[in-house]
């Protein structure tokens, strides 16, 4: 195909991607006790993809992530200006219930935090309190564990304590727990930073599978992980979104010099 045809195909693909933006931030400013942590950020997260947010530590990545499911609400002194839109709906609007937001946008934390209960109860609790029929709960737990690639390892000990699992298993349990709620978007805050390389590889494989049915937004300080796993990458520095684009471009042809410096390891 010639250059024109290629350009057409590329722009059509771009439009396709643009049509399926599921989460957006518009001129977002987030502050803690009047100190800005996220500065005038606008970003579009496309559906059924993995978007990685990278940058040096303390640059506001986690703060931005937490604003997507209103977990910042729990932090005293946190202030937010601007908009966060989910399918066009302002998540911080007056009649939006944050509890409902979190049912649609799930989160996996940096350090695995299973409940001190059995593996089964960890996964079943969320759906049950949201009215999931008791009859189907066993199936739901099984499906969630399978989707998190943990079923084979734990199917014989569902009633044993989740605290007895290894770190990697616990994190996959937390992913299964989030999946059981049937969210549309899954936010992951450095999900592998507390894990060993083998568990990390497992979870990265899992991410690939998940993006078919879900949209993932991942904060990571591991650039190799970002380049391995994600479709889109956003580079943050000191609270600003410096550059956003397809992962390939960010890592091989960055437009911004700061981005280039960071991904080539000159700082951070």
């Amino acid at each position, binding site marked *: 195909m010639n250059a024109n045809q290629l350009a057409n195909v590329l722009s059509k693909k771009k439009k396709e991607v643009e049509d399926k933006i599921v989460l957006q931030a518009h001129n977002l400013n987030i502050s803690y006790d009047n100190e800005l942590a996220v500065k005038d950020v606008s970003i579009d997260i496309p559906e059924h993809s993995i978007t990685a947010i990278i940058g040096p530590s303390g640059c506001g990545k986690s703060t931005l992530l937490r604003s997507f499911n209103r977990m910042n609400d729990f932090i005293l002194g946190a202030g937010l200006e601007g908009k966060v839109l989910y399918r066009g709906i302002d998540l911080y609007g007056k009649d939006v*219930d944050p509890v409902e937001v979190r049912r*649609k946008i799930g989160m996996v934390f940096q350090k695995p935090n299973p409940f001190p209960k059995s593996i089964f109860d960890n996964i079943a609790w969320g759906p049950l309190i*949201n*009215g999931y029929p008791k009859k189907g709960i066993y199936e*739901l737990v099984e499906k969630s564990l399978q989707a998190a690639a943990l079923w084979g390892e734990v199917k014989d000990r569902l009633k044993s304590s989740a605290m007895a699992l290894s770190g990697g298993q616990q994190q996959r349990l937390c992913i299964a727990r989030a999946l059981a709620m049937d969210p549309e978007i899954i936010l992951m805050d450095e999900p592998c930073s507390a894990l060993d390389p083998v568990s990390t590889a497992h979870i990265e494989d899992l991410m690939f599978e998940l993006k078919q049915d879900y949209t993932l937004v991942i904060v990571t300080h591991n650039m190799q992980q970002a380049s391995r796993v994600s479709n889109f990458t956003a580079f943050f520095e000191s609270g600003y979104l410096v550059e956003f684009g397809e992962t390939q471009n960010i890592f091989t042809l960055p437009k911004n010099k700061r981005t280039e410096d960071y991904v080539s390891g000159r700082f951070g």
Partner: protein
Amino acid sequence: MKNSFISTTLDKNNIFGQGNSKKWREEIIKFSLFLCATLSVLTTFAIVWVLISEARIFFQHVPAFDFLFGTKWTPLLEPRSFGVVPLVCGTLIIVFGTSLIALPVGLATAIYLSEYSTSRLRSILKPVLEVLAGIPTVVYGYFALTFITPLLRELFDEVQIFNAASASIVVGIMVLPMVASLCDDTLRAVPVSLRQGAYAVGATKCEVILGVVVPSSLSGIMASFLLAISRAIGETMAVTLAAGASPNMTIDPFVAIQTMTAYIVQVSLGDTPQGGVAYQTIFAVSALLFVITLSMNIFSGRLLKRFREVYE
């Protein structure tokens, strides 16, 4: 894997509905818990209101100056006199005796616990202290009357059956665990780096403790002392049983005295007619007691806060 069980409230046309009944239930629970919390605040206001309104009846008959500074306390016998100083003296002598025992012993125990003892020994000593703290005060009163007083009478001739010393000793024992526990917490909060700095200039353990650790915990230690004294001021049963019912302005620890708290008990057990001035004295004395202990508690809290600010 996709289930659609949440679609009913969160489907594409009505993504963020409100689970109404759930929210309502949450609000009711929150409100009932709120009521529980307000009850505790109400209690303070209730205490203040009760004391003020009842003491006012007393102060309509007796000027506050006479009450606070008069040195004769004979409200139940003619000629009536309402100077509270003897009662305050009685309380003070108990406090003095208690402090003499509980403060140094408590601090030394805390130093031992935090600086010298192993965790095994600590696991024996700490529960023992907790048991001592948990023994009802009436038991201590009994112990003072039937063991300490006879013991003192054997050692010294001039000890009366009811005396301040014996009560002070048991109140000291009673309060000791509180001082030890608080000082222990305070001493342990001093950073290891501070101690290591002192050792590094060639100090012995004793010098490190007395020269560096204790001085850095001073406000916490003072706070514990104040709390202990406040507790000694409010102590009732031990002094009622062992210290006597004779309001006396004396510094002799071997004679009978009467504390503010013991006086209140005496009137409650007797048949003084309610509503009369003599009876209302208990509210005036209570009010004084409340003011004193409250001030000490507030002051002690401030000291503790100051200590925490330095180390956190």
